[in-house]
């Protein structure tokens, strides 16, 4: 499991994300969700509409992998990609995050953050961004 920082959780809970799924043979399908709930530092819950569940449920039924980019202005300001296993629980998509990447343009694009010591990830964030989440 990967540990989300407060900044990561603030962006995801505030603005949701673009959630990519794939069939077991690699056909992608995406839903866009405008908020999330962080039940812990490792798990996110995205409320889905019935239509959204219909888009991703076939893929998730055969392949739990998901990839998430922060939504809205987070696509610019919160340059992360989160990967993990997703499952439909009730009306929600619950994702256990196990990989976190920087997608900041330049030499840190693709840098895997969750394998760094947590304090280093916090230092990485505070040295590169002034915000701790979306504008309130």
């Amino acid at each position, binding site marked *: 499991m990967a540990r989300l920082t407060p900044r990561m959780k603030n962006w995801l809970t505030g603005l949701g994300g673009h959630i*990519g799924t794939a069939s077991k043979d*690699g056909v*992608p*399908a995406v839903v866009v969700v405008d908020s999330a709930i962080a039940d812990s530092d490792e798990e996110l819950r995205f409320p889905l509409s019935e239509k959204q569940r219909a888009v991703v449920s076939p893929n998730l039924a055969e392949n739990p992998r998901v990839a998430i980019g922060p939504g809205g202005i987070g*696509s610019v300001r919160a340059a992360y*990609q989160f990967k993990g296993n997703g499952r439909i629980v009730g009306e929600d998509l619950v994702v256990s995050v196990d990989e976190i990447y920087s997608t900041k343009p330049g030499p840190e694009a693709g840098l895997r953050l969750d394998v760094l010591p947590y304090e280093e990830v916090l230092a990485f964030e505070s040295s590169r961004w002034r915000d701790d989440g979306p504008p309130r």
Partner: protein
Amino acid sequence: MRLGSEASKALRTVGGGGAVVYLTTSSRGGNPNTVGERFVALYKDEYILIAEMFAQKTRVNLNENPHGVITLAHPVKGRTWVFSGPATILQEGHAPDAKWEGIDVAETLAEWGDWATKEPPSEVPPDIRPPALVQRGVMALHVTSVTDFHPDRAGEPLLIR
């Protein structure tokens, strides 16, 4: 599937730093990858081009599984659009007469292979601007399907003028 001026305006520079989309690809075995992309344009009304600036996993994915999904990320302004279709990376070194999904690779690269010159990223705020716009090709998605990502209409087909 032909798109029109509304799509072109949404995908091109719209002020305040330009449009941002997410490009989702997947490995052949089903490991998805979703990355934000800023240098985007509609090409010949049915292709979406993105500057390829060392998108490593996207390249690996497209080399083994040439499908892509593009979702409009910012600004959305009600344009809850999902573009899907075959996708690839066009790059110098191709055969002289190479074609992909009906477009001429050389012609496409001649027009969009040097994004920094064609559309300098002057609008992109300095703190999120790439340190150098180093481009090694163009990612191309041939739009064969447009659907809605609005929660109430997710997955429904759309016609965009």
